[in-house]
């Protein structure tokens, strides 16, 4: 029987997340103390050695990211990505609401590694209560004196999905329109207000105190060797236990859905699962024995992404679901680059046409061609990932599309 492995959420609901003293009682801020006693280079090496990879979606090695920051730059920033815009994802909110001090400690550890004394938390506009909580948490940590000269300010977004992309997030903090920048230069070299900046996800930062106190080897030994540690997943949709779990990264999707999640609701059969949020691929039953770690998911054309797990039962209309998703991306495209601005709009149009029973095989061909160009030529991850739900469902659930097409060659129809 698959079981949770709680590290970040071990003391969930047992401590007051805003209260630094509570956190210190259960071993908090020991990691920061240790980090501050280390040479920055050794600290970065320790994080590299742990194998910690980004928990926001791109899965980049955290220590490696930090090592790109020029040590001699006079001003540097630590930015926490709490935009959490993927529908179905709420793990960063849970981390804040259960263990906010670990996030603050993690950011301060990053500050010690790169030589920064200013951190910013960019919180999605839909979480004003989380901003309140974080502000109280920062006050409490300051009152305990544990943050030293490291200051943290919580900033709020205005509800744009694209601001979860790190450079659009930086633009937004700067007060500009939330649009991604081209890379390079990467934020590590030229980020917030033009200075070297590390942008990491909430979960990534929150892992750091435990890596420091329990050691890089301990962390590297949990879960999948190439994407070690635990992962907080959030189950939504037609699943019995629609809640969050912290699991080792080598747990399979089947274990997550059928053991922890209790299987499909109302005794219905499983149809598909979308992992990683709205931009993730839809995975059929045949692929459920795949571990959830970043690389295993990537190998089958899916993405772990933010750890959202959306389960669809046998009665769900895949084409209708994907049509709604295409509407979401049409709305959330910032409009900067051609493939995404126009591509998301046309994807939605064609998906609606098919969903309404007016589509043809030619429309499917056009969708696939458009999808390919968007994935290869769009400026940022939004435009590149937006057609993946379409692509993956045409691949795995083509019959559902065919059923809705206008009869042209004796096949399909309605």
């Amino acid at each position, binding site marked *: 029987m698959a079981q949770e492995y709680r590290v970040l959420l071990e003391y969930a609901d047992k401590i007051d997340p805003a209260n630094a003293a509570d956190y210190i009682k259960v071993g908090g801020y020991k990691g920061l103390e240790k980090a501050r006693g280390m040479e920055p280079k050794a600290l970065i090496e320790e994080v590299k050695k742990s194998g910690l990879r980004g928990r926001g979606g791109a899965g980049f090695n955290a220590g490696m990211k930090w090592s790109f920051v020029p040590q001699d730059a006079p001003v540097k920033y630590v930015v926490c990505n709490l935009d959490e815009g993927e529908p179905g994802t709420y793990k960063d909110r849970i981390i804040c609401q259960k263990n906010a001090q670990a996030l603050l400690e993690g950011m301060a550890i990053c500050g010690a590694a790169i030589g920064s004394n200013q951190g910013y938390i960019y919180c999605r506009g839909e979480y004003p209560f989380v901003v309140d909580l974080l502000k109280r948490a920062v006050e409490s940590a300051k009152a305990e004196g544990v943050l030293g000269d490291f200051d943290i300010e919580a900033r709020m977004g205005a509800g744009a999905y694209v601001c979860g992309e790190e450079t659009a997030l930086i633009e937004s903090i700067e007060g500009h329109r939330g649009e991604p920048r081209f890379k*390079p230069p990467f934020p590590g070299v030229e980020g917030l207000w033009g200075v070297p900046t590390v942008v990491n996800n909430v979960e990534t930062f929150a892992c750091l105190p435990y890596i420091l106190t329990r050691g890089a080897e301990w962390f590297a030994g949990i879960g999948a060797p190439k994407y070690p540690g635990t992962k907080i997943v959030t189950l939504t949709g037609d699943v019995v236990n629609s809640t969050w779990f912290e699991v080792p990264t080598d747990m399979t999707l089947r274990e997550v859905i059928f053991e922890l999640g209790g299987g499909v609701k109302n005794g219905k059969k499983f149809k598909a699962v979308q992992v990683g949020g709205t931009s993730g691929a839809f995975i059929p039953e045949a692929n459920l024995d795949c571990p959830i770690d970043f690389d295993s998911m990537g190998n089958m054309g899916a993405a772990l992404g933010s750890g959202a797990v959306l389960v669809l039962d046998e009665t769900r209309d895949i084409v209708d679901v994907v049509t709604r998703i295409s509407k979401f991306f049409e*709305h959330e495209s910032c409009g900067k*680059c*051609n493939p995404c601005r126009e591509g998301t709009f046309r994807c939605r149009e064609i998906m609606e046409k098919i969903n309404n029973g007016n589509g043809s095989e030619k429309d499917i061909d*056009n969708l696939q061609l*458009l999808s390919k160009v968007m994935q290869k*030529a*769009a400026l940022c991850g939004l435009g590149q990932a937006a057609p993946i739900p379409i692509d993956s469902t045409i691949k795995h659930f083509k019959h559902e599309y065919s059923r809705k097409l206008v009869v042209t060659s004796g096949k399909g129809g309605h």
Partner: protein
Amino acid sequence: MISLTIDGKEVQVPKGTMLLEACRIAGADIPTLCYDPDLKLAGSCRMCVVEAKGRRNLLATCVTPAENGMEIHTESSDVIEARKIILELLLSRHKLECHTCESDGDCKLQDYCYRYGVADSRFDGEGPHFTKPDPNPFIMRDYDKCIMCTRCVRACDEITGALAINIKDRGHHAKISTAFDGNLADSTCVFCGQCIMVCPVGALTSKVSAGKGKPYQTEKVVTTCTYCGTGCTLALNVKGDKVVGVTSVRDIEKSPVNNGALCVKGRFGWDFINSDERLTTPLIRENGELRQASWDEALDYTASRLKGIKEKHGADSIAMFTSARVTNEENYLAQKFTRAVLGTNNVDHCARL
């Protein structure tokens, strides 16, 4: 120096060179829409994408630095496919009326559609819906032809500093707009027309030149603007024996003062040349009425009146006020004449105001 291969040809470029430049050195013709050498990079049109060996995604050459050992293919099947689809996406939101378009023959969208054989768009849903009338005398804004390259926004910010326009709304519904989507006249726009200068299509054109001649029907006569002493270079667009427009000369060698930038007067204020109301001879006022005179008569009359005033009231009763619309040399002569011939230091100039 770093070394890379572009379409099978090895080139060496200094570190920091963008791929676009490297490709051009290698002789590859890379299409661009949002790129403008005088503006900050946007990297947004994605027309300049190329394939790099070992990279999953195509690279936008205008914003990607060349790297040692890169193997670039500028016209691979994936690259051509991407460019064609991007063109089709743009066509599907574009008002296709090339036959009456002011930019016909001088339009990058048209050129690239021709180059890649894109006659029509497979995306046949909703068409363009972006234009709203803007009743100003100078700039025609037809956003049903806009390709959202944002060159106008950047030129307005970076060249003129007017910050009159920016992007409004998001996604497909994003459009170029003044604050609160009002008219240009109510914005900080100074009608310099730098936006027209950088627009690669027919979305921004001159209302003053509308219908008077397509770009390829006019001869471009490079000259100096006569409005002030700055000495901006501009090109008079001449059709037959008439000036029908003014365009920028975007070459720092030929336009060293202004590098193509103009002001509202230089760009739009040329219609006096063929105006019926234009003075063609000197006029002398007699008994409250103006009558035509020859230059000889007018000069003699002026000389005798100046002489008469000086004799009766003294030289300091006369002042010379000169104009920024004449050259430095002529202004010099005017003050010299005032001091040496008229005998007064009462000299002033409109540019001092």
